[in-house]
């Protein structure tokens, strides 16, 4: 088994300078190894720091301590200490992330948003993936700003999955979806695992979690230090 992602002694706290330097410790001593083809679900109550961990793994949040090793181009790269340009490269080739909400340049059609994320920029593949996620052709040429929450989430999922990244981070990928569309996403996650993609995700829906996750990592809320 190949370890794709290895978190060692990760800690994260926020310092709120505008609140008199208030310290908010969120994560402490987090360890996690994810192998190729494996899906680990982050569990724990709301506010425990699941999204904070996922964002730290993507290099979107700055780790306070510890290492986040990502297998990139045959080497383990520490996202927590890598220079920004390295993180940009790791994200382009290795590390994909599906956020809860779509954030894109206004005016860009849904099809282009997805195609831009494809390694070969293929519009055909983008259209096929959007169809699979039940986004009909008539919507492909429209910017997603006017789409429903569920449609936007599916555009976001298409954009996340088309990149073919060997590691995927999923933040509530089925949160706004009905059962039929959630089933499609579950099938996509299952296929990605079969291809050897390592996945870390937050799945609030217990049924979805049961069907995709091989293991759980429970994040316990830290006591407030204040």
């Amino acid at each position, binding site marked *: 088994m190949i370890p794709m992602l290895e978190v060692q002694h990760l800690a994260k706290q926020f310092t709120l300078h*505008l609140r008199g330097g208030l310290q908010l410790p969120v994560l402490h001593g987090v360890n996690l190894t994810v192998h190729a083809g494996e899906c680990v679900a982050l569990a724990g109550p709301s506010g425990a720091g699941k999204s904070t961990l996922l964002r730290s793994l993507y290099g979107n949040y700055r780790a306070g301590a510890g290492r986040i090793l990502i297998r990139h181009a045959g080497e383990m790269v520490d996202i927590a200490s890598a220079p920004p340009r390295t993180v940009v490269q790791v994200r382009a080739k290795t590390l994909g992330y599906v956020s809860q909400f779509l954030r894109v340049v206004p005016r860009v059609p849904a099809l282009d948003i997805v195609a831009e994320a494809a390694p070969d920029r293929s519009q055909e593949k983008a259209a096929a993936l959007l169809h699979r996620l039940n986004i009909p052709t008539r919507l492909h040429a429209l910017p997603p700003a006017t789409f429903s929450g569920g449609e936007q989430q599916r555009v976001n999922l298409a954009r996340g999955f088309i990149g073919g990244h060997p590691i995927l981070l999923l933040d509530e990928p089925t949160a706004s979806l009905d059962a039929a569309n959630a089933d499609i996403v579950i099938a996509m996650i299952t296929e990605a695992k079969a291809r050897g993609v390592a996945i870390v995700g937050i799945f609030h829906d217990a049924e979805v979690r049961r069907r995709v996750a091989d293991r759980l990592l429970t994040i316990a809320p830290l006591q407030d230090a204040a």
Partner: protein
Amino acid sequence: MNEDTLLSARGLTLHFGKVPALVNVDADLWPGEVLAVVGESGSGKTTLLNVLSGRMRADAGVTWYRDPQSRLHDVHAMPAPALRALHRSDWGFVHQNPRDNLRMSVSAGGNVGERLMAAGQRHYGNIREAAIDWLAQVEIDPARVDDMPRTFSGGMLQRLQIARTLVTHPRLVFMDEPTGGLDVSVQARLLDLIRSLVARLNIAVVLVTHDLAVARLLAHRIMVMQRGVVVETGLTDKVLDDPQHEYTQLLVSSVLQA
């Protein structure tokens, strides 16, 4: 200096009287990278752009530029004609007000073609063809190639300025608030245009903006300036989503959510 940077500055310091505009500023830019410089008015961001591009001199510090033959040049030690030649070829400068760059008494096509002529091209047919091609690339109807810029809207003028700047295929473009002063709908279109052109042509950009949303959509990296000091720098989404410095936290928390 790292082997492959296109532009590197160290220790840039500049005072206007007693007011610090730049305090010991370091900056690096790699080919194809978009670097946003953000901060409030008076933070020194436009001064930094002017110093990096050689339009203004610092009291102290050095700026190195690597030319296509990989030779290093001290931007502030270059003879004026060499710097002007650089600004006409491998560099571009997009001003907030397109009228600062365009010649309003020359046709749209002439504005684009002029930069090619300055770069040594002489064949009228080729120049006109390139101008028409660039008008199309910035979504201006090529039928307007002979129209005067004064008949253009603000958004069109800005797109014309971008065509004029990019026609020589510069590797490095300085942009000062390129979407400032435009209607929001026009801004969105321009943002999309800049983003796709920069990515497709692999242009490095130093982008000055006070608009954090513009920085987020266009820039790989970001520098936050306050009173001439770079208080925070890093990956754009990391600095905006998890700001470490008190001033960055204030900037991020002050943005209205639309």
